[in-house]
């Protein structure tokens, strides 16, 4: 019953998503929105491997996103084919995860979360000032190209390809593939030995350790896997928009987005991060473009989406820790109860 239901809804939705670039709805607007949604689903799913399965809340995932984006830009500007930089971006993000994950993951619970905030900000500031720092260093000066490595606050720009329409379409499918890959990884992790170990760590670290789970190694592996996927996302984002700067890719809002999406959708589940990411993008898109016209006062609501997420987060934590999936579950229970009651009523009559 539920299987066929999934097929009937999932099939057409998938077909529609595949066909979006050909339909050219709203002048390619929907395609851009689709691209962003897939990208955010990938990141949300990746964050969920560490934050949801292993229960280690990271507010520093923008470091991986930014590092992926910067790796791609820096290498591409030095003549390396852009597609080759994608796995490199993932690996560098992953190694960076190992670098700060090893010390930070010794901390537990909220202390880990606080440390990751620091790591995120430190990385952003480092990227902002890296050029100035190495300008006078005889050893590191070689990395500069025309006096630029990360470009400071102005960021880096990539050359745009001639046929931008075809380019964008290729990326649309590319990132869709990446999303399915991330979901596959997440699914495999969830149902395998690795995921079981992560859940055990999430529930009780000491107990997990005494039944043979190498908690340190598992947490670091989860962080590195998560970082790899987010790094690739960053790389693809950079290639899609041709322009990056530390504020957009390393900014704290990016980290927050990655925390919010799985929590909104349903933390620690496979589908929750997907729902959360879709919700996040739709809300952001609707509100960013909305204007409130009160006759004399015209208000742009472009920052209001942050307020919406904040409010939502409070509600979720207070009332439904399992997010949208939890709401869905409650609705199901309520619906079944209602159905049973009406059935009983008709029988009586």
């Amino acid at each position, binding site marked *: 019953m539920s299987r066929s239901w999934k097929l009937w809804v999932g099939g057409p939705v998938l077909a529609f998503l595949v066909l979006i670039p050909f339909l050219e709805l709203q002048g390619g607007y929907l395609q851009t929105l689709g691209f962003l949604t897939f990208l955010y689903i990938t990141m949300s799913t990746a964050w969920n491997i560490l934050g949801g399965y292993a229960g280690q809340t990271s507010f520093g995932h923008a470091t991986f996103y930014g590092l992926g984006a910067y790796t791609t830009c820096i290498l591409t500007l030095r003549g390396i084919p852009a597609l080759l930089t994608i796995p490199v971006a993932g690996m560098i993000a992953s190694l960076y995860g190992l670098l700060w994950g090893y010390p930070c993951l010794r901390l537990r619970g909220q202390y880990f979360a606080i440390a990751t905030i620091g790591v995120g900000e430190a990385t952003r500031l480092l990227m902002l000032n890296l050029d100035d720092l190495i300008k006078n260093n005889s050893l590191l000066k070689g990395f500069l190209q025309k006096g630029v490595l990360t470009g400071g606050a102005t960021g880096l720009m990539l050359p745009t390809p001639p046929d931008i329409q075809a380019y964008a379409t290729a990326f649309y499918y590319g990132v869709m593939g990446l999303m399915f890959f991330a979901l596959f990884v997440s699914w495999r992790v969830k149902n*395998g030995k690795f995921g079981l170990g992560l*859940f055990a760590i999430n*529930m009780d670290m000491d*107990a997990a350790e*005494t*039944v*043979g789970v190498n908690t340190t190694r598992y947490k670091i592996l989860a962080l590195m896997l998560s970082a790899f996927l987010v790094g690739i996302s960053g790389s693809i984002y950079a290639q899609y928009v041709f322009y990056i700067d530390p504020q957009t890719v390393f900014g704290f809002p990016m980290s927050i987005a990655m925390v919010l999406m799985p929590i909104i959708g349903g933390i620690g589940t496979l589908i929750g991060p997907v729902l959360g990411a879709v919700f996040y993008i739709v809300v952001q898109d609707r509100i960013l473009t909305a204007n409130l016209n009160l006759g004399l006062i015209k208000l742009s609501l472009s920052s209001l989406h942050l307020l919406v997420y904040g409010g939502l987060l409070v509600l979720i934590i207070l009332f439904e820790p399992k997010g949208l999936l939890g709401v869905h579950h409650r609705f199901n229970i309520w619906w079944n109860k209602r159905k049973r009651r009406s059935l009983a009523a008709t029988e009586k009559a």
Partner: protein
Amino acid sequence: MAILLEGRKVSRNFGGLAALLNVNFQVRSGEIVGLIGPNGAGKTTLFRCITGVHPPTFGRILFKGEDISKLMPHHICVMGITNTHQVVKPFPEMTVLDNVRVGAFFGKGWVRGEVKDATQEALRVLEFTGLTSKANFLARNLTLPDRKRLEVARALATRPELLLLDEVVAGLNPTEVDRMIRLIQQLRESGITIFMVEHVMRAVLSVSDRLIVLNFGEKIAEGPPDEVARNPQVIEAYLGKNYASGKSHYA
């Protein structure tokens, strides 16, 4: 019988407090050894030294002749020593079956196998510990006796050679105590060596081959249960004078 576990002058300090001081002990394979002593004597600390949670400050612990005193807890588990926790620590949001599966997956003797195998092993252990009917319950919904059983089941799934039981009987009613004692005896029959901390005298005296008594971090007596129970030093330190004259409510 071969010596399975040996402690040589095991000491553990917490700041200035010596929780354990030069404790020597031996556990032979196939034995049930009871570890008793008044509150704060260092029983749980000794267990934590063995499992690597709080490694000994001084002294060595040998498992089958190998020094394990500096290994991480998960490593020690994989070598074949598992403990249950005095304050039960189930994985609350996981089903009983999944709890046990963690042990089956990560414990000793898990060579690359299928998820199916671990599940089968877990089901076998649930059957053995009498939790089969609750396999799909969330661990947080279990009653205390069942949680204690789950502790044992999860530890058992790691296929230990030496099982450290930290007060698995405490807090159970008399019927449940009897069930737990039967389970412990079955464990020994299946070839597992048991080292247990216990306050409930009825349980520890009836199953142990040998008792080790700690007081203020030092070993004060060792020997067969009835002999230890008659030891004046033990009576003085732990059982109280009423026990000697047969007026105790423990017995």
